[in-house]
């Protein structure tokens, strides 16, 4: 066990050094989640916050916990639940303790949360995003072998700026019948997401980063975004960089998704393109997602809904949450565990013997989980 810790520390130091020598990036501190392990010398367990969520959330979270313990992943879960009343410190149903826990642990996994309808509180996702400063949303989209969609060879990653752009929420009525909505692009946010995109491409062995824009029409705003991307691209000469206009991008994605590798884009385009890519591989029920925040925080989440109609019936498909947890493991540099779990999930789906209802099978959540554990 001591040799394991020593090996992991050594590997981390080596990757740290490589990162520092090849890129003189000033934002080193942003991604240094690997630094944490140096301080916690008592146990080699990583603490992670878990939000099971509502509806089918608890069942699929249970499934993730089972798979992780069967795979011997060194993670200790700290569970937090959404409160039943509005916490005045956060103006929403997410409690201050939960947020502090994520800030402390720097890593979290979130199940689907249904925002209760009403006024006087912020939406849950908005709270998490604003409080934890989650600036990049990463969605790896790859075709699941064995689950046939019209597209078989999708293998791309969409990285979307998550804080500004068209979703600033700054709208007002000028006169009756005329509404203005502001789209804001700042250099700081664009640089931040571009840095993360290239860092991600580098650490995951991706060859090409494409920036998606509409700078022929929105010349100053998307022009600024592109300028920032170009600046960062110069620091990574081994990664190919290209720029694609969004309408071309949409068309090429539906005709030939293999043309793209890593896509980085502002908020609105990112929203649309990442959902389009999710549609290519089979829908939101199978798509993993990871949100990156300032200070190296990573919050993996399942982007599908809470499906209250099948809650508690052991019918839910835990694939999205499992694959999100896998991307969380990649972020923590536990690549061998991540690959092991990912292979097990893909093999189970490819085999076809145990598939949940939404994939066309009849297995229950527990059977599916057991099959995955069997494939580890």
């Amino acid at each position, binding site marked *: 066990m001591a040799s394991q810790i020593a090996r992991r520390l050594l590997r981390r130091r080596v990757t740290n050094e490589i990162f520092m020598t090849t890129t003189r990036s000033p934002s080193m501190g942003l991604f240094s989640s690997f630094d944490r392990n140096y301080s916690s010398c008592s146990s080699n367990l990583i603490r992670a916050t878990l939000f099971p969520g509502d509806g089918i959330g608890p069942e699929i979270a249970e499934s993730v916990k089972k798979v992780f313990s069967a795979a011997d992943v060194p993670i200790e879960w700290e569970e937090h639940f959404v409160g039943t009343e509005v916490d005045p410190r956060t103006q929403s149903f997410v409690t201050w303790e939960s947020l502090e826990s994520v800030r402390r642990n720097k890593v979290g996994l979130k199940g689907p949360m249904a925002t209760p309808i009403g006024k006087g509180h912020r939406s849950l996702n908005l709270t998490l995003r604003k409080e934890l400063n989650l600036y990049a949303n990463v969605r790896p989209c790859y075709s699941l072998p064995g689950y046939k969609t*019209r597209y078989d060879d999708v293998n791309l990653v969409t990285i979307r700026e998550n804080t500004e752009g068209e979703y600033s929420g700054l709208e007002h009525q000028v006169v009756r019948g005329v509404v203005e909505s*502001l789209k804001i692009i700042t250099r700081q946010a664009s640089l931040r997401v571009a840095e993360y995109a290239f860092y991600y491409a580098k650490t995951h062995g991706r060859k090409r980063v494409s920036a998606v824009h509409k700078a022929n029409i929105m*010349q100053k*705003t998307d022009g600024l975004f592109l300028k920032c991307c170009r600046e960062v691209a110069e620091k990574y000469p081994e990664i190919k960089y290209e720029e694609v206009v969004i309408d071309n991008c*949409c068309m090429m994605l539906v005709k030939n998704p293999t043309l793209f590798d890593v896509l980085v884009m502002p908020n609105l385009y990112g929203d649309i393109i990442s959902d389009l890519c999710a549609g290519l591989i089979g829908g939101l029920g199978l798509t993993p997602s990871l949100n990156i925040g300032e200070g190296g925080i990573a919050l993996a989440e399942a982007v599908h809904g809470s499906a209250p109609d099948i809650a508690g019936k052991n019918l839910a498909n835990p694939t999205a949450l499992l694959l999100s947890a896998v991307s969380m493991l990649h972020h923590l540099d536990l690549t061998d565990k991540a690959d092991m779990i990912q292979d097990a999930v893909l093999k189970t789906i490819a085999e076809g013997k145990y598939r949940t209802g939404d994939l066309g099978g009849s297995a229950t959540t527990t059977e599916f989980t057991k099959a995955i554990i069997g494939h580890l």
Partner: protein
Amino acid sequence: MAKRTLPILKQLLHQRSPSLSPLSRSVTYMPRPGDGAPRTVTLIPGDGIGPLVTGAVEQVMDAMHAPIYFEKFDVHGDMKSFPTEVVESIKKNKVCLKGGLNTPMGGGVSSLNVQLRKELDLYASLVNCFNLPGLPTRHENVDIVVIRENTEGEYAGLEHEVVPGVVESLKVITKFCSERIAKYAFEYAYLNNRKTVTAVHKANIMKLADGLFLESCREIASKYPSIKYNEIIVDNCCMQLVSKPEQFDVMVTPNLYGNLVANTAAGIAGGTGVMPGGNVGADHAVFEQGASAGNVGKQKIVDQRTANPVALLLSSAMMLRHLQFPSFADRLETAVKRVISEGKTRTKDLGGKSTTQEVVDAVIANLE
């Protein structure tokens, strides 16, 4: 010998009849005396593959002896603004056929395409995305018409730098423009026997702006009770387009979403090289390739002369109908569809190896 030839004869007869039926009309179109006089249409070849494909249209119109007379003007994407003589000509002729104009990226020159639309107030942009028989695609049963607001929204072009490093862009939505595009969409659905109109929006985030758009659509929908109306959020819309496109019929959208949805729909139905479309306003109409992606094309396509003229040919058929020459429009459309379904002459974007000229010759040969 008679026993052997009889089934062959039967087969030949059956083969011929489907191709003849679209042309035999049961009710004749009765024109007014003098309607057959040639109409002048402004022609703007444009940049890149533009001259190639507009040349194709000219050849086919010639071969059909269509009562169209083209007035050609040279406009390029790097000009500062549209030359006044061209705009005057379009105002006089009321109809224009246009190739793509290249917009320089981030160069401080606003797009000429957008300028023309604002100048002539062409407030509706229409793209018809449908599966062409004989062209294999991943999705079947696609027949979507995307009607997109063309003058305001995100393309208002009002941008400014607040402080260095912070840029703002205004998205403007007005009740006036939203109402008229909704009216056009429902009118189109009514006149073309379409059953559903879907409004595409993002009103859960942009509550005031897209909320105003939706309000206008709902108001107009109440005036057309026979047409079904529903709403869909734009990211869900793209996901549904990729997995279940057959559920969509007519879609009405603000400016930016319309661009994305139109190009996605064109991509799933066969590519932007074959989808017809145009821009229409109260007084003028400009026909061009439907989806905006790829209408200028890459230099390689220009050099090898393998641009796909089908989109512009189908758009010119739409133009002929707009000018009230339905039988010419029918002949052109039938010929183009027959060339596609035969599959022998197809350009590179459809998986074939022919040049533009070969496709044009095939279309001319198939004209009845």
